[in-house]
């Protein structure tokens, strides 16, 4: 039997529902835990970040306007697609993080379960965080959570897949759109996630995935006037400080990196990552309690 030629995969960015190469044309070598070459990944530039923000902004209206139920269905569909490519992710996670096959499989399973968990939250979060407020006056006073807008997400550097899913899913579940900067050393599972998202009814631009030097891509994102929030999960202490300063310019919401103990991505997440990127809108509505004021109507 003749030996087959190896078919290498070209990893590409995922921006606006398409798979472009980096605008800069650059790539960098991705190695496994032992330093063995795995693939070349695009080395994104600030212009890729800019394009991704434009795509995310364009997608925001449709995604945030979709019904929560519909968003839940689409996210569940993503989980279905992830399940179908489970073996691929197990191999990529094992390669990237130097895990045994069974440990990698456990990570992937946890990630898929987490995705399903967040899919269930889409039409429930409003009831948990919103509701009627008691006020001293003839008004209905209602608060409802609304998505913040375009969120830049720096994915965790070590947990290449479970960590990634844990930061991306809560952002989009509530109706935000995301520009994700993949883990610098382990970007392959993130770039493969783009291929799943492209085939699961998720509108193009809702999630945009960039790979490259985190510091290089994150700086323009943090300063970008059209980015509404930034999740610094994947930034080191010094970088996080720098980015938070830059983000202050247009009053971005900033989610600081959680303390090291919190980096156990397998713990039950809670709703904090969703509520971090929600704005509360409160409406006062007159109840028309005319009888109370003595009207004869």
């Amino acid at each position, binding site marked *: 039997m003749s030996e087959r030629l190896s078919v290498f995969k070209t990893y590409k960015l995922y921006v606006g529902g398409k798979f472009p190469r980096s605008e800069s044309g650059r790539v960098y070598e991705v190695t496994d835990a032992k330093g063995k070459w795995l693939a070349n990944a695009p080395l994104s530039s600030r212009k890729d970040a800019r394009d991704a*923000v434009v795509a995310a*902004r364009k997608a925001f209206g449709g995604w945030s306007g979709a019904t929560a139920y519909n968003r839940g269905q689409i996210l569940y569909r993503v989980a279905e697609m992830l399940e179908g490519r489970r073996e691929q992710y197990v191999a990529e996670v094992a390669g990237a993080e130097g895990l045994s096959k069974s440990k990698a499989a456990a990570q992937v399973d946890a990630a898929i379960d987490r995705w399903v968990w967040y899919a269930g939250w889409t039409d429930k979060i409003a009831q948990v965080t919103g509701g009627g407020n008691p006020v001293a006056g003839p008004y209905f006073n209602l608060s409802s959570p609304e998505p913040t807008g375009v969120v830049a997400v720096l994915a965790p550097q070590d947990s290449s897949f479970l960590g990634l899913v844990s930061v991306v899913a809560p952002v989009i579940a509530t109706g935000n759109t995301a520009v994700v900067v993949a883990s610098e050393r382990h970007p392959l599972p993130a770039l493969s996630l783009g291929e799943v998202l492209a085939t699961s009814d998720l509108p193009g631009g809702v999630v945009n995935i960039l790979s490259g030097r985190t510091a290089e891509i994150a700086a*323009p994102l943090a*300063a*970008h*006037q*059209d*980015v509404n929030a930034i999740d610094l999960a994947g930034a080191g202490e010094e970088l996080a400080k720098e980015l938070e300063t830059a983000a202050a*310019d247009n009053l971005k919401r900033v989610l600081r990196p959680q303390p090291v103990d919190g980096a156990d991505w397998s713990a039950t997440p809670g709703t904090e990552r969703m509520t971090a990127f929600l704005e509360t809108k409160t409406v006062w509505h007159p109840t028309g309690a005319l009888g109370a004021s003595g009207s004869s109507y």
Partner: protein
Amino acid sequence: MLPIVPDTLGPTTDALRPTTAGTLTGSVPATNERAGLYSRYARRYARLVTMPTTAPAAHGLADVTASDSTLRRFLHGLPGVDTVGLEARAASLGTRSIKTTAKAYALDLAISMVDLTTLEGADTPGKVRALGAKAVRPDPTDRTAPATAAVCVYPDMVPAAKAAVAGSGVKVASVATAFPAGRASLAVKLADVREAVEAGADEVDMVIDRGAFLAGHYLKVYDEITAVREACGTAARLKVIFETGELSTYDNIRRASWLGMLAGADFIKTSTGKVAVNATPANTLLMLEAVRDFRAQTGVQVGVKPAGGIRTAKDAIKFLVLVNETAGEDWLDNHWFRFGASSLLNDLLMQRQKLATGRYSGPDYVTVD
């Protein structure tokens, strides 16, 4: 350069024969045939050997519009357009990298060339006022941003626009002649133009009768443009819209360009912005070549206005490169080159802010119209 006056006479030998036949005796040619040859000869060389006895035409091409057939012969005598070459040249000029100070210059120049346009059925005086305010001061947070060239509105909105830009130097352009289809009688079109001019429009954007043009009735189109030109008087500059997306071939665009310029257009403009294909680098390049050649032939400079479909600063800068490389620096001025656009201005302003602050700007920081 294009050969401008197609040889409307017979072969050269024909025209020369009378000289050898008639000069020896000095006698008057006897036959009718000979008289015919003489007059053809005279016509051909009259410009070279005699002083003009009548008022000189506006330019040396006046005689090609003498009749439908001379006009057709002239327009069809224009060299055909090399489609592949044209598109390749337009594309290659679009690859220039314009950065830093050159970019800052180009952005400001482009802003100053924008004809800020609103041509919707839903236009209100309020919207036109807002547009006028934006034209005068595009970026309220930065007073160094230049004003746009003009606002472009429907004729009935001219008074509102005029009031909104009063005292600022921003011009008011009005579309007319049954824009955008141009399907109305000449009387209606002229009334449309007069109304706009009387209301104070500084510029009139007319559409040509594409139906007549495509049917080959060039003289009808020519007459219509000259009539509108007359109706504009000296008060208004005339922009002639060809609706290049409906002319179907590059050859037609070249013919329309020459036709418009012969008829006295101050500007030739690609499109109305109301059809699928609007301004493209290729058709704008073609029109820039036409105005360049027209000036070389006649000394008359004509402006160019691509309109519709130009939405990003990057695109606008590509057009400026086309202008500089084709027509030349003389056209790099808002008296001779304009962009018909509305959303383009916001992108130019965002790029300008990016250049000034180093941060990418967003649509929240420019006015939405």
